[in-house]
C-alpha cells in the first residue's frame, strides 16, 4: 500500500483493488467518471472551432458551400450513420454486460469494433472518390466544374476533410481502446464490482457517435 508503484491493481472480478488514494472502489469509480465527463467537455471545445468556422464560411459562401455539399454522397453518409448508431447500441449492451459480469461483453465489444472498422471502410471509399474527382482542400482543389462555378467550395472541402478527418482519428483511437478492453474482458477482468474502463470507453464511444450525428446533416444534408 505504501509504494506509489502499487497504484491500482486489477484482479479477478470482485477482487478489484482500488488505488491507494481512494477510500473505496465506489469512490474510485465516481472519480473516474467525473474525469471522463470533463474529458468529453474538453472534446466538445476541441471540435468547436471547426463548427464555428463552418457556420461562418457557410454564411459567407452559401452558394459555393451548397454546390460543394452536392458533391457528397448522402447515401454513404447515411450508411455510416446507421453503422455508428448500431455500434453505439452494441457498446451500451457491452457496458450492461460488464456490469452484470456476463460473458457476452466480448461479443458486443467485437461487434462494436467491427462497426467502427466498417465505418472507416465506407469513409475510405468516400475519400478515394473525392480525391479522384479532385475535390480537395484549398489550393489542391482541381475539380474543373467546381473551380469554375464555386471556387470557394475549396473551403467547404477543407472543412469537410478537417472535420471528418478529426472525427476519423477519434474513431481509430476508439478502436484501439475497444480492442484493449476487449482483451481485458476476455481475461475476465470486469464484473459487477469493477467495470470502470468499459463504462468510460462507452461514454467516449457515444461521444464519437454524437459528433457524427452533427456532422452528417451539416455536411451531407443541409448543404
Amino acid at each position, binding site marked *: 500500500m505504501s509504494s506509489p508503484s502499487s497504484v491500482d491493481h486489477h484482479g479477478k472480478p470482485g477482487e478489484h483493488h482500488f488505488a491507494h488514494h481512494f477510500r473505496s472502489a465506489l469512490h474510485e469509480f465516481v472519480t473516474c467518471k*467525473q474525469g471522463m465527463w470533463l474529458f468529453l467537455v474538453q472534446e466538445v471545445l476541441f471540435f468547436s472551432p471547426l463548427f464555428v468556422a463552418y457556420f461562418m464560411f457557410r454564411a459567407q459562401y452559401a452558394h459555393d458551400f451548397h454546390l460543394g455539399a452536392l458533391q457528397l454522397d448522402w447515401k454513404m453518409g447515411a450508411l455510416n450513420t446507421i453503422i455508428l448508431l448500431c455500434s453505439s447500441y452494441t457498446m451500451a449492451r457491452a457496458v450492461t454486460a460488464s456490469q452484470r459480469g456476463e460473458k457476452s461483453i466480448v461479443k458486443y465489444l467485437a461487434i462494436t469494433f467491427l462497426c467502427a472498422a466498417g465505418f472507416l471502410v465506407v469513409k475510405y471509399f468516400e475519400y478515394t472518390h473525392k480525391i479522384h474527382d479532385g475535390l480537395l482542400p484549398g489550393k489542391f482543389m482541381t475539380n474543373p466544374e467546381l473551380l469554375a462555378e464555386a471556387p470557394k467550395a475549396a473551403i467547404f472541402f477543407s472543412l469537410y476533410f478537417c472535420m471528418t478527418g478529426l472525427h476519423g482519428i477519434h474513431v481509430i483511437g476508439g478502436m484501439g481502446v475497444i480492442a484493449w478492453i476487449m482483451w481485458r474482458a476476455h481475461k475476465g477482468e470486469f464484473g459487477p464490482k469493477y467495470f470502470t474502463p468499459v463504462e468510460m470507453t462507452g461514454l467516449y464511444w457515444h461521444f464519437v457517435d454524437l459528433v457524427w450525428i452533427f456532422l452528417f446533416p451539416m455536411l451531407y444534408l443541409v448543404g
Partner: protein
Amino acid sequence: MSSTTAVAGKNYLTDPKGIGSWIYTLDHKRIGLLYLVSVLFFFLVGGIFALLVRLELWSPGQTVMSADTYNKAFTYHGTMMVFMVIIPMIPAAIGNFVLPLMLGAKDVAFPRLNLLSYYIFMAGALLGVGTLFFKGVDTGWTFYTPYSTKTGSAAAMMVMAAFVMGFSSILTGLNFITTIHKLRAPGQGWTKLPLMCWALYATSLLQLLATPVLALTLCLMAMERVFNIGIFDPALGGDPVLFQHFFWFYSHPAVYIMVLPAMGVINEVIPVFSQKPIFGYKAMALAVFGIAAVAFIVWGHHMFTSGQSATAGFIFSLITMFVAIPTGIKMFSWLATMYKGTLRFQAPMLYAYAFLFVFLIGGLTGVVLATMAADIHLHDTYFVVAHFHYVMVGGTLMGFMAGIHYWWPKMFGKMYSEGAAKLAWFFVFMGFNVTFFPQFIAGSQGMPRRYYDYVAEFTIWNQVSTVGSWMIGVGFVISAIYLMASLVGGRKASDNPWQALGLEWQTSSPPPTENFLVDPVVTHGPYDYDKVAA
C-alpha cells in the same frame, strides 16, 4: 496528527531510491518537482533570450544581432515564457506539489494521467526547443496569420509543440478539478477549502475549456501551412482575422491561467504572515470565478484596431471593464487582511508585497488598455509590452517566487538563507520596475513593439530598461545560488516554520510518500488564525 511520528529519513525524496523511481514516479510531489526543474530550466533559456533582446535594444540600429535573429530571439522569449514557463509554473509545478497536501489527500485523482501530462509537456517542449535546429521561428508567440503561414521558418513545428503542450495543460486541469471535487479530507467542506485550491480550480476550468480551442486552431494553422487549406488565407477566400478570434479565445483566458494561481499563492501567504484570517473569504473565492467567467468573453479587446466591427469592440470593451471589479475586490481584501495584523516580512511576504505593487500597476494599465479610444493609440506599442509584463511577470513570477519561498521548507525540509533571499528580492523587484516602467513611457510616446530598430527619441528609455534587465538577471542568479545552497547545507526546516494553519503544514517536512501518516480530519477553516493557535 503531529508529524513527529514520521520515521526519520523516510520521506518522499528519499523513498524509494533510484533514477527509475523518479522517471516512473506516480507521486504528485515528485511530479511537481520534475515540473519545477523543467520549468526553471526553460525559464533560464527564455530569460537568456530576454537579455539578448534587451541587449540588442540598447541602441538604435544593429547592436549585436541582425533583424532576423532579433525576430527569432523575441519569438523564443515569448513562446518559451508563455507555453513552457508561466502557464505550467504555478499550477503544474507548485500546484502539483501542494494541492493534494492542502486537501489532505494522498495524491491527485489520476496519478498516471499526471505523469503522462508531464511527459506530454516535455515532448511538446522539446519539440519547441527543437525548432531552433530547423531555422528557428520568427512569428512572435501569437502566430498571426497570414504571416505565420508564409514565413519560411519552422512555424508549423512550433505550433505543433504548443498543440502538444496544450494537452498537458488540459489533462492537468482535468486532474485538478476532479481531485478538488472528490479527494477532499473529511470535514473539508467547500467553505473550508483554502483559496489556493479555489484559484487552482478556476485555473483548471480555464485550462480545460480554453486550451482545446487553441489546440485545434494551431492544428488548422499547421494544416494551412502544409496543405494550403485556405481557412485563414485571404487569397483563397479565408479570413485572417478569424485566426485572431480563435487565438485570443484561448490566449485571453490564458492570461488568467497565468495569474489566478499567483493570486492563490498570495491568498495563502498574506494571512499566514499577518497571522490573521483572510478578509472576505467568500468574496475572494467568488472573485476568482468571476474573473475566470469574464475571461471567456473579452478576447476581442485584443483586436480594437484589427478591423472588427465597432459594435463588437463596444461590447468587448464594456465586458472587459468588469474584470476590474473582482480584481479590485481581491486587492482591497488583501489590504484589509493585513490591517491590524502582525506582519512578518520574510521572503514570501516580501514577494507578496512585490506582487501587490506590481500587479496593481499591471491592473490599472489594463483598465487603460480596455478603454477603446486609449487602446487605439497604445495598441501594439511598448505600453502593451509593459502592461503584460507587469501582469504576467509581475503577477505570475512574483506569485511564483512567493510560493516557492513559502513552500520550499515543505518541499525539501530545508531553510534557505533569509538574508540572501532579501538581497535577491531587492534586485528582482527593483530590476523589474526599472526594466518595465520606462516601457510604459516609450509606449505612450509611440514606440511600437517587436521593433528591432527605433527612432532616436526612444533611446533613453530603452537603455534604462536594458540596465533593469541586468538587475533582474542578478536577482535570479542570487536566488538560484542560495536556494541550491540550502539543499546542501541549509538548516533543517521544522514541520511548520511559518505557523500556518493549512493542512500541508501538519505533516512532516518533507512529507512522507503517503503525505499523511494518519488521514487528516479537518475541524477548522484554513485561515482561522483568530480561533486556533498554529
